[in-house]
């Protein structure tokens, strides 16, 4: 259950065997079914999830409509980070889109792990840097790209998701209607 996490982490940091044991003690292995909500809007997100298997969707609810903020897939950490880090009620919901196998850690256990395993700090920093870059690219794409260009980029980077999740969720992530997404896909075929 931790092989996948350590294989992923080995691209960024090296853990000793003793550190690996500490990490295994800090995380909980949790299996959740599709549609299970890990974080509810209005409640504080107390955990971060490393996805061994499955998909999680982070979304906003506005005027009764879901707006996808991000889809997390295997080998990614997921949470409602604003809520998790600032300990304030989440403005987003985090939900499983598929039956998912997760490695779960609480805020307090993460802080303890930072003290005991310095490489965990490095790992988190490197992941956070990558997330910052990705967030900037998404923002830039909203400002600079046409909906069709945004779709092309999404397809190039996350083409597998087109087969795994309903397209209306992708449309809301791209900031377009499902009808527009359908038109774009037809044009590009």
């Amino acid at each position, binding site marked *: *259950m931790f092989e996948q996490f350590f294989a992923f982490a080995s691209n960024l940091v090296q853990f000793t065997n003793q550190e690996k*044991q*500490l990490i295994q003690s800090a995380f909980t292995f949790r299996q959740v079914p599709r549609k299970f909500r890990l974080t509810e809007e209005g409640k504080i997100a107390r955990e971060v999830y490393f996805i061994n298997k499955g998909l999680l969707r982070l979304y906003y609810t506005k005027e009764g409509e879901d707006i996808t903020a991000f889809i997390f897939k295997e080998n990614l950490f997921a949470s409602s980070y604003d809520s998790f880090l600032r300990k304030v009620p989440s403005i987003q919901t985090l939900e499983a889109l598929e039956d998912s196998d997760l490695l*779960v850690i609480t805020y307090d256990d993460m802080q303890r792990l930072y003290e005991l395993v310095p490489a965990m700090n490095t790992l988190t920093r490197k992941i956070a840097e990558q997330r910052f870059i990705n967030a900037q690219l998404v923002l830039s794409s909203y400002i600079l790209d046409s909906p069709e260009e945004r779709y092309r980029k999404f397809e190039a980077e996350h083409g597998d998701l087109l087969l795994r999740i309903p397209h209306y969720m992708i449309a809301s992530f791209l900031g377009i209607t499902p009808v527009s997404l359908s038109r774009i896909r037809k044009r590009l075929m």
Partner: protein
Amino acid sequence: MNKRIKTEIIIDSSKEKLWELLTNFNEYPHWNPFIRSIEGELKQGARLTNRLQTRDKIMVFKPIVQEVIPFHAFSWMGSLWIKGLFDGRHYFSIEEIAPNQVKLIHGEDFSGILSTAILKKIGDATRNNFVVMNQALKQLAESGASSDR
């Protein structure tokens, strides 16, 4: 940080039904791929005889029940050879999420002078065994079977 293994699974069941399935030790041989049998009474201070499936052999442990909170949790404390070498507090806890959905928490906290070395060898396999049992219990609970079959 304490040495521990902690696993969880979401099960569509009432806490009462899951408690009944989990504490009906007589039925374990029929569904439980990890704890093949438990003899003894689930009450604080009682000694149990647990037969655990580990790879291709059965290991027998005789832990003592530590805590029983009906419909919520129970645990036992066991030792390998003598107390202080490799001790484990094995626990099950049921958290209600909704009237027909619960989270089963299944874990073990380890201590003793050999715990680091032994866990290094058997930690992964033990965690896998917990997960296999969790999945079997989920299947049993969600299939509509009851323990009084």
